């Protein structure tokens, strides 16, 4: 059993969103259409 503290869904959401924002900003993520 591990005692290491893991990230909650809240923090995952923040991290994934920031990563996506960085990719959009850098142009690495192509245009996202809807």
């Amino acid at each position, binding site marked *: 059993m591990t005692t290491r503290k893991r990230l909650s869904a809240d923090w995952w959401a923040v991290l994934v969103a920031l990563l996506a924002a960085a990719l*959009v900003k850098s142009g690495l993520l192509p*245009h996202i*259409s809807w």
Partner: protein
Amino acid sequence: MTAGVMEDRGSGFVRLLPGIALLAVIGYAGKLTEVAISTFGKTHHMALPNIEYVLWAIVYGLILSNLIGVPAVFRPGVDTYEFWLKLGIVFEGVRFLIGDVFRLGATTLLFTVFVLCFSIIFMTWLGRRFGLSDKLTSLLAIGSSICGVSAIIAAKGAIDADDEEVSYAIGAILALGAFSLIGFPFIGHALHMSDQAYGLWAGLAVDNTAEATAAGALYSDVAAKFAILAKTTRNATIGFVVLGYAIYWGRKMGTRQAQSMAQHASFLWAKFPKFVLGFLLLSLLATLHVFDAAQIKDLANLSRWAFLLTFAGVGLRTNIRELTRQGWKPLLVGAAGEFAIAAVTLGLILLVAPHLTQ
């Protein structure tokens, strides 16, 4: 819960994939249905009502989960719908200037405090009148005043409630959340409410964040934006209300757990929904012109895709049979309380709507 699901690593992530794919298929089927109806109306010169993908995704999810059932292999991934909701909310931050967040947030906070006080007092009175247990009454009051299921689960440990009481309270909140998806847009259109007024109403009166977002999106894109802001402000108060109840129940039962929690300010931080910080950060970055107009549109579209998965999950996790299996008393008290809260909030919004600016 999603938190637990997201905590799994490695092989745990692979287990999520079938369910996430199912969310994507159902959500996208909802989007295709909206487009197909709109195209059919245009090509045949018919004025068909524009039914948003939100409703189709929820309906398809409901049909699958209630008529066929969700096979076990899909369940871990389906449970991630709450993660997609939070991700979508964080992305929504780019659609707000930080000044607007604080200005509208302050207005919303005033409403929130009023709604909180009203719903706690009213639900407590109603629960006692119907002879519900004090803890179940507390759970219903917490669920109806802040943010439904998350608040009830957060409060469970704090007030040491039974699992049965928790499932009753969650069932009542979810059943009423499902009703709000039909009732709220209908009332909003009947009263010709503006997008902002309707969005604030949905965000303040609908208990569960996913349903509040869906109720807003069913009205309009702008209404969804305001529903999310109002609901996020409401969610941010979760720690204060749960702490208040923890102190109340700690004193009542003389339990050490609640007393020690009251002594720690970290309790508030532990209960604070952290994704709100991501929402504020993206709003700040957008205000500082870190993103150009095209990039903001891209991020707003990412938010829509995340919500598409969320709404499919809302339908998939709603089991009508389970909702009807609960006792009639919690549902009745929950329903009466919800209607009263929705009506009072609507009155409040209509009163101040002329003074609200977009």
